[in-house]
Structures are given as structure tokens and as C-alpha cells.
């Protein structure tokens, strides 16, 4: 059974603005946020059938809820993130602590190398892709490649709205890629095309990309996708996936959705 690391949104709010989605005046409605998160957890546990590991939320760390940015895990090894913005750096110790307490080998990169975990590093069994420029530093990828013995193809993120790779790029279990091409430059698109054949590349339209259609969680043939992305949902269903829409509007105020709220542990 797949396991995901999650963190309840007890302290989730918008305390600062570090991406184009965040507006302090656009306040989170706590009860809505909790309801949306609970629904997501229910779908994941009951409909998709994954196991959930819940870490404790921490007052003053509103974005701890976005566990995708804890680090990246392979087997029993984790490389903990090094956040670009000081606002999120205080999360690092809590993530590291959780993994240490759960028996993982915890590694870190040198402090000057920004790397924001599974938010910027995801891929297929053989090839991983690394998003850089907005948050993670491209120089972190050769080190991660060495640690995990995986090829990591760096992709420059050129649109500030898609500041993490998981906001515009979603590898699926069947080998398809759900992505929003305009978030990448010509070099990145060519590198993607070289690895993923055209018939496997599923393009998300812009109006759904900004509703975080790519920030979906794919487990086996199940895909949990933010609500309001009918076109993408249809494409996925045509490919034989079972889609689960979840309303996640409160988290989108902070620039995250289903994928950002989870971290695959194995």
C-alpha cells in the first residue's frame, strides 16, 4: 500500500507572500480549509486506498501543511529540503525530525543549495525531472542524482505562477505526462519530448493549469485532482484513469493543491 506524509492545516494561513498566488488580504477561511483537507484525506484513504502518515502541525509554520516540500524520499533515504525563502526554512527541522523519528536515513545538501523537495523533483521510475530557477537551484540536482543514482533532467521554470515543478508537471503511473507546456522554455520542452513520446504527453489548458490541474496525486489508476478542471479530467478518464475531484480553493490561495499537500513515502 502506498503511503503519503501529510500535515493537518491547524495553523494554515497566509502570513507572508512568497509566490504570485499569495495575498495576505485574501485570508484563508480556517473552517473551509480544514473541511477541504479532511475531504482530501478521506478520498485518499477511502477511495484511493493509500496509507496516511500525519505529522503534527506547528504554530507559526503555516506552510508545513505542504508536505511535498519536506524533501524527497527513495526507499528509506530522504534528502531534506533547503528552502529559498527564510519564511519556510524553519520548517526544515520539523520535517527532518519526523523522518529521523520514523527510522529514515536523513541527508541534507550544503546550505547554499536551495532545493524544495518533491515540489521540484519528480518523475518516472528511471528518469526524474528537476524544476529550477524559481525555487530550487539547478546545482542541487547533480548531488541528488549521485545520492539516488537516478538521472535528473533539469527543467527551467519560466512562469512565476508555476514556481514549483509539481504545479505544471505531473508524471502518471501509466507513463503519461500531464503538463502545462507554457511553463517551460523551448529547451525544456525539447528535453521532455526526447523522453516522453507525443502520444504520452497530455497537455493541460491554461484555464485549468491555473486551477492547479497538474497538482494532482496519481496512485495506480487513481488520480486525485483539484475540482474545476473538467477538460483535464475527461482526458484522464479517456486514458483509463479513475479521477476524484476535490475542492481545494483555500489551499490555492497559497499556491498549492492536492499534490502539494502530500509527500509520497514509497
Amino acid at each position, binding site marked *: 500500500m502506498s503511503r503519503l506524509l501529510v500535515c493537518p492545516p491547524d495553523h494554515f494561513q497566509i502570513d507572508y507572500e512568497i509566490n504570485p498566488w499569495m495575498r495576505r488580504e485574501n485570508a484563508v477561511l480556517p473552517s473551509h480549509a480544514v473541511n477541504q483537507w479532511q475531504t482530501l484525506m478521506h478520498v485518499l484513504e477511502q477511495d484511493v486506498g493509500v496509507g496516511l502518515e500525519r505529522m503534527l502541525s506547528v504554530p507559526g509554520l503555516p506552510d508545513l501543511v505542504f508536505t511535498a516540500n519536506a524533501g524527497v524520499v527513495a526507499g528509506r533515504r530522504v534528502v531534506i529540503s533547503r528552502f529559498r525563502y527564510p519564511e519556510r526554512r524553519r520548517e526544515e527541522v520539523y520535517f527532518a525530525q519526523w523522518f529521523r523519528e520514523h527510522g529514515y536515513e536523513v541527508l541534507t545538501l550544503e546550505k547554499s543549495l536551495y532545493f524544495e523537495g518533491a515540489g521540484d523533483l519528480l518523475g518516472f521510475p*528511471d*528518469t526524474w525531472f528537476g524544476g*529550477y*530557477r524559481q525555487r530550487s*537551484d*539547478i*546545482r542541487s*540536482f*547533480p548531488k541528488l*542524482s*549521485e545520492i539516488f*543514482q*537516478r*538521472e*535528473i*533532467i*533539469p*527543467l*527551467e521554470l519560466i512562469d512565476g505562477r508555476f514556481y514549483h515543478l509539481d504545479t505544471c508537471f505531473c508524471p502518471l503511473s501509466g507513463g503519461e505526462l500531464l503538463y502545462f507546456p507554457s511553463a517551460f*522554455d523551448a*529547451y*525544456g520542452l*525539447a*528535453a521532455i519530448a*526526447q*523522453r516522453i513520446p507525443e502520444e504520452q504527453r497530455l497537455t493541460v489548458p491554461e484555464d485549468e493549469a491555473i486551477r492547479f490541474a497538474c497538482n494532482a496525486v496519481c496512485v495506480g489508476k487513481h488520480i486525485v485532482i483539484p475540482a474545476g478542471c473538467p477538460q483535464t479530467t475527461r482526458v484522464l478518464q479517456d486514458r483509463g484513469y479513475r479521477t476524484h475531484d476535490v475542492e481545494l480553493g483555500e489551499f490555492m490561495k497559497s499556491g498549492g493543491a492536492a499534490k502539494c499537500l502530500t509527500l509520497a513515502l514509497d
Partner: protein
Amino acid sequence: MTALQETVFLQGHIIDSLILAKVLDTILMMGGTFDLQDVTIGATRDAPSQARIVVRAPSSRLLAEILQAIQPHGAAVERDSDCRFEPASAAGIFPDQFYATTHLPTQIRLDGDWVEVEGMEMDLGICVDPAKARARTLPMGSVKPGDLIVTGREGIRVTPLARPRERDVFGFMESVVSSERPHQPVIADIAQRMLKLRVGYRQGQPDTKVLLAGGPAIVHAGGREALTWLIEAGFIHVLFCGNALAAHDMEAALYGTSLGYGLTAGRSVPHGHEHHLRTINRIRAIGSIHEAVRSGVITEGIMAACVRHDVRMVMAGTIRDDGPLPGVVTDSMQAQEAMRAEVQGVGLALLVASTLHAIATGNLLPASVPTVCVDVNPSVPTKLADRGSFQAVGLVMDAASFLKELARELGWRL
């Protein structure tokens, strides 16, 4: 002008991701150039690749902008170290590990700053001034005890020549020397350069002198009038030769022969073999070539033109010289020093029909000086072209034909 440069290092999966291509494209699009060094491609898909890239730009501002633009793609500047140097322990002897120069523009790093090495020439050492603000090349024989001589290879960078902007014969990276190469277009390009250089020289611009290093075949073969005209018309500003060219030129002025052969009749004249000795003897009696011209003994020819037009002359002696003529420098190291002083400010070198003087001059010239080597023997231009200069043109042809054709291109009418 030497471009400013910085070395950056790029590693990871830079090939398939097209990151390397993106970095190189960025450098070019911003107006810089690059050299790819030490590219290692990962042996397997998982293995990373790496590349060391020398980035060059015409200004420090543009270089900084380029470095800033490629830095987010992982191209990190490699930190260089200062160069090392040691004091020479004895006169005329470099420290053991001395750095031997090339003829390419070279910089050394002193206290964190890159300093241009002055007087670039191949096969010398580099001497650092005690204030560590300047550096210049130094021949082995000129080292004094305590001179600070650069050692090892750290903190030294050599800039390959950029392809010249002009689209003439010097602008193509050809070092092929062939007797079958059509001469006319090459000579026309050389003439164009010389016209431009003459304008610059007359305006006092730097690096506009034209140097001709020549052998006596110029006189035997009938190139004397053409060369005389080139000098009189202001196209040649420095002449390197030996005892023979000067002796045969003045023999022709006094006797109408070159090594005893009548230059117009084309056959030996009675007692002609003595003419060059009598010429040398006569000039020795007068005291100098300069005086021989001034007093009207030598009235025409290459030497007369040089004296009248203030062409700088270095005559270097050899072991087989007769006389020699007054002014011939018989100490080879002194001759080398004198030639070294005169190549400063040269913007074009014509090395015509003299293996010895052509090679010696070629060794003294920085690679940036366009050089034409003309000889009937292909081995001479080939040897010079092998020095790796982009701007060396070899012509396998007779000296007289070359000089006549060049002079005609420049307006000489018989």
C-alpha cells in the same frame, strides 16, 4: 584587443536536458564567445556529464552580465588561484619550473587580478615586477639574479586568437600551404592591408608598421626594383635582413651585378665574383651604409631607399658572412634583442625568401600579427604556419614575382 574571460564549470545531466546548449546559446546571444574545454559525457544515462567553458566578452560589463545570465543554469565561475613565481638564483638561468610562453595573448593572476603579460613572444619566461602590478616576457639570457619568474601553470591563462573581423585572406583559419594556391587574390588582400596600414602609420596610429624580413634572393631573382619602390612609397617601415641582402643590393648599385651575375644581361661578368667583396670593402672604408648613401656613393636600391625613408633596419650576421658590412650585428643575442625592439608596433610582417630571418622573425612576433611568408621552398611557410597562428599566410612562390605583383597592386608602374 584581448577579450576578458572567465572559466565556468557546468555539471549534471546537461546534455539531454539541453542545459549545456542553453548556456552556450545564451553566451552567444548576449554577444560573448566561448571555448568548450574538458567536456566529459556521462558513460551511462545515470552518470552525469561535465563541461568547463571559457566565456569571453569584449568588455568586463558584458562579461559580468553573461556570467549573471548563465549562473542560474548552474554555470558556476571557477575560482582561480594566483600564479606562482620564484626569484632567479643566477644571471641567465630561470628557476627550474619556469613557465615557457606561447606567442598567444597571456594573462597571469597577481593578488586576485588578471594582468596582461607585456611583450608577448614564444619560448620566453615571464618576469613579474616587484610591486606585482605588471608582468613582461623575458628571454632566458636576460634574467638577472632575483628577477621574479613565473613558475608552474596555475594562475596563467592563454587566450586563443579570435577569428579576425576582416574577411580577407587573414580572416580564414587556413594554415594550408600549397604551391597550387592562386596567388593573385592573396596578394590583393595583402595590398589592401598595406594601404590601410600606410594611412594609419602616417596618422601615427599604433600597430601600423609593416615589417619585411628578406633574403638575398630578392636581389638575385629581380625583386630589387619592386622592393625599392615599396619602401619609397612608404609601405615598408622595418627591414630585417642579413649581410647578404645589403651587400648584393649595393653591389647592384655599384656594379650592376648580384654575386657577379649581370642583373640585366643575366650572365656572369669577368671578375664578377669579386664584386660583392669589393662592395663590402668600399662600404667598410666609408664607415656606414648611411654615409655611403648620404655621400652619393650608393645612389639607388633597397639600402638607399631605407636610408632616405628612415626605415628601421636590423642586419643580423651569420657564420658565413663576408666582411661583414658595417652595421651588421654579429652577436646573435644582440641581434635578437635589436629585432625584438623593432617588432613592437608591427601590424603586418612579410617574410620573403629567407629561412633564417623568416623563422627568427616569426618566433619574435605575437600570434596576433598577420604574417605572410613567401618562399619557393614550401617547408619555410609550412614551418611558420605550424606555429598555430590563425593569421599566417604561406605563399609558395618566387620572391621577385611576389614583390612585383604586390607593388603593382599598390600602384607601381615600370
